[in-house]
C-alpha cells in the first residue's frame, strides 16, 4: 500500500528504491545483503579452484533464499506475532521427533526425513526461538520481573539443550544467543546478567563433562593445534597460514597459494573466510567486516524504529544473531574460538543456513514495513 505522504517522503529516492519499498523490501538492508552475496560469489569462485559449477549452484540457492526473504517480508508483523507460540510448539515437537527418529548424518541426528524432503528442525529454531521470546516478553512489563525471566530462561534452554544433544553445538549456540538477545534487549537488569555470567562460568566444568568426545577434542585442539596435525588441528593450522600469509594487501584474487594448492580444507564452506583473507589481506577483511557491521547496524536501526515491543525485540535479536554468526565463524577460522560448524553468513557455500538467514531478513523487512504503514 502506498499513500501520498509516503511518496512525498521518499521522493528523493531512486525509482528502484521506491519499487523495492512497494514490495516491503528495505533498500538499504537489501543493498548490504546484495553486495555481501556478490563478494561471496567471487570468493567462492576462487575457493572452488576456478570452477563455475559451485558458483552456479550457489546462485540458484541464493535466488531461492532471496525469494524466501521476499515471501516472508510480505507476512505482516501481526501474523508473526499470532503464530509465534504455535511455531514454537511445533518446533519443540519436531525436535523431539528428530531425537527419537532422526537420520544420523555425520554421527549426529539433525535431519528429519519426511520422505519427500529432509529438513533440519533445529535450523528453524534460530528464528522461532527469538519470535517466541519476543512474543512472551513484549506483553509483560519491562524490564522483566523474576517470574518472566525464569519462564524466558526455560524457553531458551529447552530448544538449546535439545539441539545440543543432537549433537549440533554450532546451531545450539546460535539459538541460545538469539533467545538471550531478546531477554537482554527487553532490559534485564545488569546485576542479573552479572549473576548469570558468574553462574555460567561455574557451569563450565559440568558442561565439559557433558560434551561429546569430538567436541572436547575441538576445544583441546584450539589450545594446541599442533597436537593433532592431521585431524582437527589441520584445519586451524592451515587456515592460520592462509590468513597470515595474506598480509596487509593479500595475494590477489585467485592467487591464494594456500587455497589454490589444496592445503586448506573445507575452503568453500566454513573456512571460506581464510580464502578471502589470504587473497585480499587485512584491507579486504576490513572492508568485508565493515559491510557486515553496516548490515547489523541497519538491522538495529530498524529495530529501534519498530512500532511495538514485539517488533523491536525480534528485529534486534535477529540482527545481533547475525553478528554472532560472523564472530563465531571468523573467530574459529582465525583460531581464537573452537571449530564449531557455523558458516560465514551469506558467503559460505551451502543452502540450509542461507535460507534461514534470508527468512530472518525477511522478518526484519516485515517489521520495517509495519512501521511505515502505522506511521503514515
Amino acid at each position, binding site marked *: 500500500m502506498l499513500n501520498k505522504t509516503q511518496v512525498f517522503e521518499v521522493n528523493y529516492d531512486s525509482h528502484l528504491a521506491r519499487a523495492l519499498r512497494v514490495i516491503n523490501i528495505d533498500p538499504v538492508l537489501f543493498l548490504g545483503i546484495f553486495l555481501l552475496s556478490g563478494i561471496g560469489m567471487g570468493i567462492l569462485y576462487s575457493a572452488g579452484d576456478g570452477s563455475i559449477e559451485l558458483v552456479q549452484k550457489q546462485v540458484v540457492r541464493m535466488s531461492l533464499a532471496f525469494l524466501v526473504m521476499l515471501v516472508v517480508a510480505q507476512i505482516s508483523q501481526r501474523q508473526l506475532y499470532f503464530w509465534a507460540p504455535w511455531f514454537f510448539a511445533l518446533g519443540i515437537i519436531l525436535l523431539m521427533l528428530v531425537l527419537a527418529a532422526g537420520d544420523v548424518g555425520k554421527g549426529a541426528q539433525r535431519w528429519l526425513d519426511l520422505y519427500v524432503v529432509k529438513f533440519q528442525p533445529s535450523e528453524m529454531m534460530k528464528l522461532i526461538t527469538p519470535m517466541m521470546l519476543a512474543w512472551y516478553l513484549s506483553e509483560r512489563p*519491562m524490564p522483566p520481573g523474576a517470574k518472566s525471566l525464569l519462564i524466558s530462561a526455560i524457553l531458551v534452554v529447552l530448544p538449546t539443550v535439545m539441539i545440543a544433544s543432537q549433537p549440533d553445538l554450532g546451531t545450539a549456540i546460535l539459538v541460545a544467543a538469539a533467545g538471550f538477545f531478546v531477554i537482554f534487549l527487553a532490559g534485564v537488569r545488569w546485576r542479573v546478567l552479572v549473576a548469570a555470567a558468574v553462574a555460567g562460568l561455574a557451569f563450565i566444568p559440568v558442561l565439559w563433562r557433558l560434551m561429546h568426545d569430538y567436541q572436547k577434542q575441538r576445544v583441546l585442539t584450539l589450545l594446541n593445534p599442533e597436537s593433532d596435525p592431521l*585431524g582437527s588441528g589441520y584445519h586451524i593450522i592451515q587456515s592460520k*597460514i592462509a590468513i*597470515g*600469509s595474506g598480509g596487509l594487501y593479500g595475494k590477489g584474487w585467485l592467487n591464494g*597459494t594456500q587455497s589454490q594448492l589444496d592445503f586448506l580444507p573445507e575452503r568453500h564452506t566454513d573456512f571460506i573466510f581464510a580464502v578471502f583473507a589470504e587473497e585480499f589481506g587485512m584491507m579486504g577483511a576490513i572492508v568485508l567486516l565493515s559491510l557486515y*557491521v553496516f548490515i547489523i547496524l541497519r538491522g538495529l536501526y530498524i529495530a*529501534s524504529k519498530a512500532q511495538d515491543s514485539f517488533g523491536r525485540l525480534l528485529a534486534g535479536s535477529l540482527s*545481533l544473531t547475525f553478528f554472532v554468526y560472523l564472530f563465531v565463524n*571468523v573467530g574459529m577460522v582465525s583460531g581464537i574460538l573452537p571449530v564449531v560448524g557455523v558458516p560465514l553468513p551469506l558467503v559460505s557455500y551451502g543452502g540450509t543456513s542461507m535460507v534461514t538467514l534470508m527468512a530472518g531478513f525477511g522478518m526484519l523487512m516485515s517489521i520495517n514495513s509495519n512501521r511505515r504503514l502505522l506511521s503514515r
Partner: protein
Amino acid sequence: MAYGTSIGDYSSDVRLFKRRAGVAALICLLMVAILLVRLAKLQIVEYAYFSDLSENNRVRLMALPPNRGLIYDRNGVILAENRPTFHLELIPEQVDDLEATLKGLSEIVSLSESNVSEFRDSLRTHRSFESISLRTRLDDVEVARLAVNRHRFPGMDISARLTRYYPQGESAVHAVGYVGRINEKEMEAINRGHYRGTSHIGKTGLEKFYEDELHGMVGHQNVEVNAEGRILKVVDKVAPVPGNDLFLSLDIELQKVAEAALGDNYGSVVAIEPQTGEVLAFASTPTYDPNLFVHGISFAKYKELQQAEGKPLFNRTLFGQYPPGSTLKPFVGLAGMESRKVSTDEKIKCKGHYLIPDDETERKYRDWKKTGHGMTDMDDAIEQSCDVYFYSLAYQMGIDTIHDFLAKFNFGQKTGIDLYGERRGLLPSRAWKRKVHKTKWYPGETLIAGIGQGYMLATPLQLASATATLANKGVNIQPHLLKSIRLTESGEMEVFEAKEKRFNLRSPSHWNDMFRAMKKVVHGVWGTARATGVGMEYKMASKTGTAQVFGIAQDEEYDEETVAKKLRDHGLFIAFAPYESPKIAVAVVVENGEHGSWMAPIARKVMDHYLLKKDKKISPAGQTNAE
C-alpha cells in the same frame, strides 16, 4: 490480550530498548575490533612467519598411511594379508613423445580406451612432474614385460601399493568379512585425520568389527615443496604404526571341512569349544570371494551376487532365523525336570496325537509318527523325538515357565559374538505376544513352542551357543571369533576375555540324565540318527530336528515328492562330543534339508576332523539314515 496493547509506559520502553540496542551495538563493534586485532596479529605481526611457511618454503604435510593388521586363524594360518599390487604410471615431463609411448605401451600391456582417456583427463589437472596412473592392477606377466622394456619408455614408472588379499578365497568369508573403498557415509563417521592416505576400511565381518585394532596409527611427514609443489626434501617424519594382528579362534581347516560337508546345500555349521566359547568353525553356504570387493566390485557383478540363488551374501549363521524344531527338546526336557513336571522314569502314552484336556475344538496335535511311540519316558522321547511327550510336558509347564528357562540358554537374546548385526531369534512369551500381536496367548501355541515350532526362532549361532552351554552344564561363555590380538607397538599378546554367565539346576544330576538321553540319538537302538553312529570312535550326545517351513492342515499329508524344494522342511542337528568330557559343540542347519537325521553326518565330519585330527571318509550327507 489483544495485539499491540503493550503494558507500561510506551516511551520509557522505547528508551530502555534504545539504550540496550546502543550497548549491544557497542559490544558488537568491540568484538569486531577483537577480530581485527587478531587478524592484525596474523597478517601484520606474524606475517613474515606465515608468509615464510606459505611462500618460500611451502611445507606440505603428507600422511603416511599405516599397514593394516593381518588376520590369522588359531594355528597361525593367514586369512587376510596385504599384498603389493602394481600400477603403471607416467610422469609427463619425463616422457619424450607421449603418443609414441602410449602406443608402445599398449603393445605390451592391455590398455583400454577408458584407461587412455582417463589418463588424458588427469593430464590436464595434474602438474607435469606428478605421476599419473595409466593402468591399475597389473598382473605378474605384465609387470615382467614392462620391467624388461623399461629402457624404451622414459618417464614410465611401476608403482607398488599394498592391498588387502584373502588367500583363503571363499572360505570363512562370513566370519572374516572384507574391506572396501571408504564411502561417503563412512567418511562422515570416522576420524578423517586417522584415515588420511587410507582408501579402504572394513566393511563386514571381523574386518569391520575390529576396524580400530586393524587400522593402525597414521603417520605424517612434513616435506618441503617449491613454489610449484615439487618435493624438495623431507623435513620431519612421524612413522605410521601398523595395525594390530588378529589371531582368531577359528580353525580354517575345520572351517573348510564344515563348508565341504555342507556341499551345495544352503545352510550353516557352527562349532564352538564349550569351555572357552571359542568359535572353531563359522560356516554359511553358499559363499563368495571377498577379493572381489577389495578393488570395487562392478555393479553388474554385485547385482548378480545379490540375486544369485541361495543368496551367498546372506550370513545365515548370524542373520538366519529358523524354527529350532526338535533340537529344542533337550532344553524343554530340562525345563520339565527343573519345574518338577516330570521325572526321567515317568512314562506317558503316545498314541500318535495329543488332545488338550477339556478343549472343545478337539484339535489333534499330531506326532510325526502317525502310529505313535507307545509308552514313552524322557530317554525315549529324546531318542525317538516323540512330539506327544513334549506337547504334554509343555502344556503342563505353560509358556512362561518354558520362556524363563530357555532364556538362561540365551534363546531370544544376542549371544554377544564379536560381529555386528547379530539377530536375536525369538523366544515367545505371554508378555511378548500381548505387546507385539496384541492378542492373548493360546494353549495350542504352548504345545507348538514345546517342539520348537510356531513363533520360536533361533539363529544357527544361538543353537550352537546353547548346545555349548548345555555341554558345559550351565556355564555360558560368550562365543567369540577373536582369540588374541598382537599389539604392534609392544609386541604383546592381548587375550580376548569372554564374558561368562552361569546358572545351576535344582539337581545337577538332571544334566547327566539329559546327556544320557541325547547319547541315544546316535548310539541308541531306536535313535533318530543311529546310522551316523556306525564306526564312531567317540560317543556323541545330540538331537535331530526338522522344522516345518509351512503348516500342514489338519488332515493333509506331507508328501515330499510333490512339495517344491524351497517349501521342504529345514533339517537341523545339534551335538556335542566326546560325551564324557565335551570338547566341541556343533549346530547344523540346512535349509530345505528335510530331515534332521540327514544333517548328522555333517556334524560328524566336523567332529571327526576336530577330535581325531584326520578327515575320515564317511558316507556323504544323504539318504542313508531314516528318522
